[in-house]
Every structure is written in structure tokens, then in C-alpha cells.
């Protein structure tokens, strides 16, 4: 059984690190043999995403239990999901803490979060409920925009005439695809909205070429999130990727619809 302890230093005399995500080291000990290794926490110096790096490290070291001072609920969820038990509120030197843990003393007075053991149906129920909750959250997240889009389409259906729309989308596949790609590049957000918009546009007789271009660029080209992409991955990367993706989206539209027409005959 392997225990990972967040630590301020690399040896057994070091103090337990009080924050899981940003403590300097992880001391990983085999409970039976007491053999240990210490690993610097790659997330110790970074302010954002530190927890993620610590989680990845602990998971990749195939640890069974984590002892730490404090662990954020998000990180705790990830650890539990990976079958790792967490004990928080742990203080003292590493060697003291391990002895206490072996005697079972830590269990009694600390805020212990029991790990999820795969195989047991009781635990599978816990996993299921947790997934249900996070799915519900993801689902609720898309609802405001989705309802906005649905209401807007209803309005378009009522107010927009076919003539007006066909003055933009001429029915000529090449310019229509280009327009579609531009439209999809400006908009972003959950792609389900692009499917609904695309599906409705088809009813107006707009070509599948254009609709496909909208669907692809909706996700792969994003003018709205371009500043964020530049900040994270660099100006050059963001510019090149978006421009390249714009043209590839047009190619994908042409290929997809051509092949589809060929198959349908």
C-alpha cells in the first residue's frame, strides 16, 4: 500500500505540506516496507492549475492514500474518482504522521474521505450519483444559451422571409460555403446550438455545404475566444491555427457533402 504525503521538504523529517496543490514535495512511502521516494511537486510554483499537476503526479505514482493539510474539493473529487483515499487536516513531521496512520490514529480525528473501491455495488452507486450530479451541472450550463437560441430561431422563423435570407445565401454553393464559414467563425459556444441553427437553415433551402461549414467553424475557428487562445498559446499559434482551420472547414464541407451526395446518388 502506497501513501503520498504532501511535504515541505524531501525527507521523513520534513513537515507535512499544508496545501495539497502547492506543497513543495510529495513523499511517497510504502506502508509495509517504509521504503520512500520524494518527488518535487511540478505545481508548487504555479498559481493556476497547480492542483491538476499534483493530481496527475499522485495518480501516476499509483498511490492508495493521500495525507495532507488541506485539499480543495475539486482536487478531492478527482482523487476519489481515481480510487485514492484522502485524509486532510494532517499535521506534524512525515515520520510521525506515517506512524500515526499505521496505528489507525489518523482515522479517528481527521476529516477522512474514504476512497471508492471499484467492484462494490454500494460504491458504484456513489460514482453513479456523482456522475449524475456533474452531468446535470454540465447540462444546466448549456441551457441558458440554448433557450436563447431556440427563442431567437422562433423569431427568425416568423419574421425572416426566405427572400431576405436568400439575398445573403444565394443558393450558389461556393459563396454560400464561404458565408457559412464566416458565420460559424464569429459564433462560438456549445455546438448543439450550431446543429439547431444549421438544421433550421436547411429548411430555408440553404445548402448543406454552407450549413456544414457553420457546424465545423463553430468549434474549430473562434474569433470570440481568440484573445484567450492567444494569451494561452501565443499569438502566432492562435492566428495560424484559426486561419488554417477556416480553410480546412471549407474543404471538409465540400468533401462531406460531395461524398454524401455520391452515396445517396
Amino acid at each position, binding site marked *: 500500500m502506497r501513501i503520498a504525503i504532501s511535504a515541505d521538504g524531501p525527507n521523513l523529517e520534513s513537515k507535512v505540506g499544508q496545501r495539497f496543490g502547492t506543497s513543495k514535495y510529495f513523499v511517497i512511502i510504502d506502508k509495509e516496507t517504509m521504503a520512500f521516494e520524494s518527488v518535487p511537486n511540478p505545481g508548487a510554483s504555479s498559481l493556476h492549475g497547480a492542483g491538476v499537476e499534483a493530481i496527475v503526479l499522485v495518480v501516476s505514482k499509483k498511490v492508495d492514500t493521500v495525507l495532507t493539510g488541506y485539499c*480543495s474539493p475539486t482536487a478531492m473529487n478527482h482523487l476519489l474518482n481515481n480510487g485514492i483515499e484522502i485524509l486532510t487536516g494532517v499535521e506534524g513531521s512525515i515520520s510521525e504522521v506515517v506512524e500515526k496512520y499505521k496505528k489507525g490514529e489518523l482515522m479517528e480525528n481527521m476529516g477522512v474521505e474514504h476512497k471508492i473501491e471499484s467492484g462494490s455495488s454500494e460504491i458504484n452507486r456513489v460514482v453513479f450519483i456523482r456522475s449524475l450530479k456533474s452531468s446535470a451541472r454540465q447540462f444546466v450550463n448549456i441551457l441558458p444559451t440554448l433557450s436563447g437560441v431556440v427563442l431567437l430561431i422562433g423569431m427568425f422563423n416568423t419574421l425572416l422571409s426566405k427572400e431576405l435570407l436568400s439575398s445573403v445565401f444565394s443558393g450558389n454553393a461556393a459563396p454560400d460555403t464561404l458565408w457559412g464559414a464566416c458565420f460559424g467563425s464569429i459564433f462560438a459556444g456549445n455546438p448543439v446550438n450550431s446543429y439547431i441553427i444549421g438544421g433550421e437553415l436547411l429548411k430555408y433551402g440553404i445548402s448543406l455545404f454552407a450549413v456544414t461549414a457553420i457546424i465545423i467553424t463553430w468549434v474549430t475557428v473562434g474569433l470570440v475566444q481568440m484573445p484567450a487562445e492567444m494569451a494561452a498559446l501565443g499569438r502566432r499559434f492562435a492566428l495560424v491555427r484559426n486561419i488554417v482551420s477556416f480553410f480546412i472547414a471549407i474543404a471538409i464541407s465540400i468533401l462531406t457533402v460531395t461524398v454524401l451526395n455520391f452515396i445517396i446518388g
Partner: protein
Amino acid sequence: MNGEKSQSITWKKRVIRSFIFPFLVLLIYGVLFAVMPEKAIAAFSSSERVLLNIIVPLGFVFILLVVFNIFLKPVNIIKFLGKESGIKGMVLSSAAGIVSVGPVYAWYPLLKELREKGAMNFLIAVFINSRAVKPFLLPVMISYFGLKYVIILTIFTIAGSFVAGYFTGALTKD
């Protein structure tokens, strides 16, 4: 872990921001109702029909989301990315992009870190572009466009993400 407070603030901001758009649409409805009430009612009932069309596929979307959340943990997705290179890296980053959920900007910080750790631009672009394939949204897509279209589009989208990744890698510093 640092930054929890700021995380909850950005979360709040995001929730508020997500309501701006539907709120604006309702505002337009209000204006329309004041000017042309019969048109506004017609628009509303037309929206109802759109909603009825997507409600069953959306139910499937929810079921798929639950299945995805049970079997795929973000941590596992991160482990896939950037570590390996060659064909394996390509397959893994494409797969990671396909199964990744949530808005793309939520993934930027992570992608940034991966790149600082040496993940290739090529693979990061493959990841971002593969996100156009959304397995859990397939019910909605199929209900609008049919199965054949969806299959063909998915194949070309995945292929396209590799082409986009290749050019992005070649034209940046890779």
C-alpha cells in the same frame, strides 16, 4: 490550493454572462410584443416547435453525458496528452479532444501547461480541432441531419484536425 477564491468568482461571472444572451432575446421579444403582439406570439409558438423537436435528442444527450462522466476522468485525459509522440500521440490527442467536455477556454490553461512541458503545437491543434466531434451531442446531430451525413462528417472532421494540426505545427515553431 491557491486561486480557489478567484475560481469561484470567475464561475459566478460565467453564470451571469451565460444569462446575458437569453435575457437580450427576451428583451427583443418584449419590444416585439409591444409593437406587433401577434407576431411575438407566433414567434413564441414557433420556438415551442423547435424545442419539441430537440427535446428527445437532448434526453439522450443527458444519458450520454452521465456515461461519459462515469468512465472518463479529466485527469486521465490529461495523462493522454503530450506525453507520447508519434502515431500514438496523434491518436491520443485526437481521442482526448473528442471526449473532452466543456467550453474550449476551460482547456486553455491546461494546454498552455502541456505546451510548456514540451507537448507539440501539432498535437495541441489536433486536440482543439478534434473537439468539433462531440459524441454526446450525436443524438441531436443525427435527428437533424441523418446518420449517413454524421458518419461522413465525423470522419472528415477527424482527418481535418490532423491536417490543421500539421499545418499549424509546420507554420509555428514545431
